[in-house]
């Protein structure tokens, strides 16, 4: 979704041909999200189908310049205004893993947390090293790349902070950590029975 709208937003700056559009996208995202030319053309075809872009001039080398339509411009403006929707709900793999681990008698959740923390911190180290190897975010392209790397750095840091928080919470309330042995009650098959039917 963001690729489609990013390409559209770039076309809002002026007509581009396929390869050029890919180069512009790379330049603006520090090559952190590699796209192949096939993806670019597929996306352009879909954008054309939706009336957001149209084919324009062809230069002497045969490059077809794609240009944005008024509907396309409106779409870009709406995209920039709207917040990005994150998937909601509790489907985070790590949160579920820790929640389950905390209920397992004999499992040291602190160890589970530490294993994750070590991995997250190692990821932070590799991101920082990649960043340190660069010359600091001075040029526009370095800056584009830094923005993307920073988002990964802050996401990893947030995870470590959340792990610290979880560890402390569990340590402060050991009496609340549920060590759940398997329940002997047989779960009912199918839908829960209606109360009337039971009575």
């Amino acid at each position, binding site marked *: 979704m963001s690729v489609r709208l990013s390409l559209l937003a770039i076309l809002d700056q002026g007509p581009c041909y396929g390869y050029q559009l890919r180069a512009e996208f790379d330049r603006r995202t520090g090559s952190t999200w590699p796209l192949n030319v096939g993806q670019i053309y597929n996306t352009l075809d879909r954008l054309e189908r939706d009336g957001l872009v149209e084919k324009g001039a062809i230069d002497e080398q045969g490059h077809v310049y794609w240009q944005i339509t008024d509907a396309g411009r409106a779409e870009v403006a709406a995209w920039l205004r709207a917040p990005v929707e994150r998937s909601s709900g509790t489907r985070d793999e790590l949160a579920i893993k820790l929640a389950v681990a905390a209920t397992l008698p004999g499992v040291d959740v*602190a160890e589970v947390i*530490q294993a994750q*923390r*070590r*991995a*997250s*911190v*190692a*990821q*932070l*180290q*590799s*991101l*920082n*090293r*990649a960043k*340190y190897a660069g010359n*600091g975010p001075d040029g526009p392209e370095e800056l584009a790349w830094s923005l993307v790397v920073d988002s990964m*750095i*802050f996401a*990893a*840091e947030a995870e*470590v*902070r959340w792990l*610290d928080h979880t*560890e*402390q919470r569990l340590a402060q309330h050991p009496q609340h950590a549920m060590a759940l042995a398997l329940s002997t009650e047989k779960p009912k098959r199918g839908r829960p029975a209606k109360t009337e039917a039971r009575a």
Partner: protein
Amino acid sequence: MSDDILRLVGVTQQYGEGETSVSALSGVDLAVARGELVAIMGASGSGKSTLLSIAGGLQTPTSGEVVVEGRFLSTASARDLAQLRRRSLGFVFQDFNLIPTLTALENVMLPLELDGFRARAARRAAQEALASVGLEAKDASYPDDLSGGQQQRVAIARAVVGGRRLILADEPTGALDSITGEAVMRMLRTRIDQGAGGILVTHEARHAAWADRIVFLRDGRIVDESRRTDADELLSGTR
């Protein structure tokens, strides 16, 4: 071993005696090599600050050995310890700890003057140190006239002036915004790469990740480490 600037061997710190005694550190072994930055992470009360003040000779452990540049602190006299702190160690604190009535240059000169350097030699070394953190133009400014990031850079210059080789930093980015904090970490990293060794105590994983090794403390014990090689594997795995 010869490349280790700092070694802690079986360092234990207890407060109180008998049944009520509390162990702040229990049998901690840690070595810091030249060109290596080691970050210490852990919850409040895990022993991070105690470890730093023992490493800096500000506190004598209940048992265990601290060796700085080959010298055993346990057998050093008070005078030797003071000299070691002046010549080998540089401290960087969260709140900068600059003397407000001295200029940036005078703050950086201070440890050298205390160590008996002649004023001219101290001035020259301090000017070099200030230049190395990009603040040569601010030498006559007083701390109050400098931004937080600039003050911390002065503190880093003070920590490394005169060829100090062990930098002990306690939450050096704690009082700085994230961009300035990153610039300070980049600078600290550069100093380490030039041959110093360092310990960084921080609760921010983002800053700890500038270290070569991250040591995790829990209840006064080292429970785990994250090394550069882990990061290397991660890098090779993603490319």
